[in-house]
């Protein structure tokens, strides 16, 4: 029986590999898409996957690909689970994958050490390991437009600019108690010493995501002046509801950019008025490129969106922005190497030379969509491009210009963390930057 099963599996897998190799023999740019439309975090994963896939489909439909070479995508369901994520990676990496967008900090951590070995860059857009933004130590990992640490420092900077400064204040940090949520804590600790504020931490376990009454009782007990949230999925709505319940002042509650989606706030509605969150890309569909997505993809029924109104929501646009960055990196790589069909190493160069300036964004059809990203060999996090949005009871309103992170301080901390990561890995591939 066992043999039969294994042999069956072998046959199936072999057949699958053969099938795909023959299919990808034609000229194409292969961008595997790791997504999660199932599992406890599906509510966030679905619009991201839609935005990402739809933009690539639009480029294929409108322009026939990038410089004439069609993009081939392949969606693989991870369910936000690291093991399945690695399985997806193993199943697709042999087919000429150009880049991986894992969309989970857990999966990113697994892929970071594999990237230099397989020579495929990992692009964790606004998530993942912050230290990976240090280009000298992590040549294959990219964190545009900003790391979690950049983001945290921007939020702290914003708080510092309000109500007479942050000194002597008490900051509550509520976070999903997994790698993702704990990621910014080291920086928060550094900042609290430097700027003289107190931090109280409120971890929310994955199992308690939807029953946070204890955490918020603690918030009521501690009475922090500001609350910062690193939440995801069902945790966000519950947290905002509980905050409303204990009558925490909403305009002193700031989420990071994974805690500010339309799906998170809509169920709370007017009670969440004043809640702020960070973001990297504008919401709304009034951009020529997004109109093209609607025209070439969504209205033709080629998209997986349930409803036309999903286009333009925060997470949809973020997925789309991710696809824009990938497409532009491919373009940059093609230009640099002179090749039309590129490979992972070329793609890495493309990312290092990525230039999403305001003019370029306008050319693409996304004017003022996001703050500029300028890639470099040294800095794989770009370190900018964070703005705040505020919930007005019905929708998100952008309320601030770009808040630049405390770059020097963050960079120093990142370099330290990167050195630590690399320290016990003797064969780790690094690079020197001019």
């Amino acid at each position, binding site marked *: 029986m066992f043999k039969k099963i294994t042999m069956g599996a072998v046959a199936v897998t072999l057949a699958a590999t053969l099938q795909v190799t023959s299919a990808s023999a034609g000229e194409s740019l292969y961008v595997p898409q790791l997504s999660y439309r199932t599992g406890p975090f599906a509510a966030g994963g679905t619009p991201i996957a839609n935005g990402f896939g739809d933009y690539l489909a639009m480029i294929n439909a409108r322009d026939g690909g990038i410089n004439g070479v069609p993009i081939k995508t392949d969606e693989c369901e991870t369910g936000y689970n690291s093991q399945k994520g690695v399985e997806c990676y193993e199943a697709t990496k042999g087919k000429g994958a150009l880049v991986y967008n894992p969309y989970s900090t857990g999966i990113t951590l697994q892929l970071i050490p594999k990237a230099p070995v397989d020579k495929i860059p990992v692009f964790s857009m606004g998530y993942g390991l912050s230290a990976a933004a240090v280009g000298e130590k992590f040549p294959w990992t990219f964190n545009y437009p900003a790391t979690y640490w950049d983001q945290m420092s921007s939020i702290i900077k914003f708080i510092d600019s309000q109500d007479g400064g942050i000194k002597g204040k008490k900051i509550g940090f509520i976070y999903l108690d997994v790698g993702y949520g704990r990621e910014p804590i080291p920086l928060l600790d550094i900042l609290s010493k430097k700027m003289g504020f107190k931090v109280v931490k409120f971890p929310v*376990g994955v199992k308690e995501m939807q029953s946070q009454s204890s955490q918020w009782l603690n918030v009521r007990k501690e009475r922090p002046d500001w609350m910062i949230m690193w939440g995801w999925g069902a945790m966000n709505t519950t947290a905002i509801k509980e905050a409303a319940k204990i009558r925490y002042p909403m305009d002193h509650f700031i989420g990071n950019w994974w805690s500010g989606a339309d799906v998170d706030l809509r169920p709370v509605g007017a009670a969440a008025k004043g809640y702020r969150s960070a973001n990297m890309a504008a919401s709304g569909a009034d951009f020529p490129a997004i109109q093209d997505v609607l025209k070439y993809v969504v209205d033709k029924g080629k998209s997986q969106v349930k409803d036309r109104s999903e286009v333009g929501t925060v997470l949809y646009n973020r997925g789309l922005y991710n696809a824009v960055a990938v497409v532009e990196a491919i373009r940059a790589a093609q230009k640099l190497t002179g090749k039309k069909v590129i490979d992972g190493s070329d793609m890495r160069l493309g990312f290092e030379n990525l230039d999403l300036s305001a003019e370029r964004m306008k050319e693409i059809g996304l004017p003022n969509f996001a703050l500029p990203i300028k890639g470099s060999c040294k800095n794989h996090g770009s370190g900018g491009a964070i703005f705040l949005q505020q919930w007005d009871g019905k929708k998100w309103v952008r309320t601030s210009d770009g808040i630049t992170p405390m770059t020097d301080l963050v960079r120093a901390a990142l370099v330290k963390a990167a050195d630590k990561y690399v320290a016990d890995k003797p064969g780790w591939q690094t690079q020197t930057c001019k």
Partner: protein
Amino acid sequence: MDFLYSVFIGPFIDMASAPDFLLQVLWEGFVAGTLYSLIALGFVLIFKASGVFNFAQGIMAVFAALTLVGLYEAGVPAYLALLITIGIMALLAVGVERLILRHMVNQDEIILFMATIGLSYFLIGLGELIFGGETKSMITEQLGLPTGSTTVDVAGGIVILQHIDIAAAVIAVIMVVALAVFFNITRIGRALRAVADDHQAALSVGISLNQIWAIVWFAAGIVALATGIMWGARSDVSFALQIVALKALPVLMLGGFTSIPGAIVGGLIVGFGEKLFEVYWGGLMGGGVEGWFAYVIALIFLLFRPQGLFGDKIIERV
């Protein structure tokens, strides 16, 4: 010394110095406790009648809530959607009995337990296939459930009572009373207790096991629906909600697998205990102790009473 102080004295001073906050903590514990009891009740019903430890209870709650919201979003009026959902839970009950239980008479407990895990996988897949993975908000107002909150002035502070929480407590009480009446007065209820006591004896006096199982699963389905609505109204309806159901397990251990009052008392002990511990002692251990605290309380209880507080005494024969 500081440590001992913060364990044995500090928390009590905190409690005494802010009595309004203590009351709020107790209230939250009470609400959480009733909701845990409600989930545990679904487990107890099924375990009593069929000896099946129904792991799928949590996902049944999610499934029921999703069906309700999904129907409403499809344009069905709220109360009609509620009725249809109850109908679907009845179908599910009959389906489980016909397709699973009937074929597994006389199997080991663990095998039946595994089958319910299989069932929960199936329901997860089916639920996501039909309703998608998006978070949905519960149609609280449309069902006539109260929203909003009341502030009570106590001891120089305030206690905030959410109306939905009060409603949850009331509904939990109604469900328990209704089930108690059902078990004690109706013919089916008596048959049910007979089955719980002795399958073979019940069969020999002409009670249909299959019918009873379907009824019990249906009752558990309704309890699941109530749970789903209440948790959904507090946070949201998503598949992450099924994890909450795991909290019912320590409740069951405390109360005993076969006792309805046990489920209630166990739920309240866990609810009060974990909120108090998390708020006043959790900080000492870095917080987030709620995940295991209930299990540890239950474990300690079990060491002294291996059948739970209200469970049937375990008699072993050689």
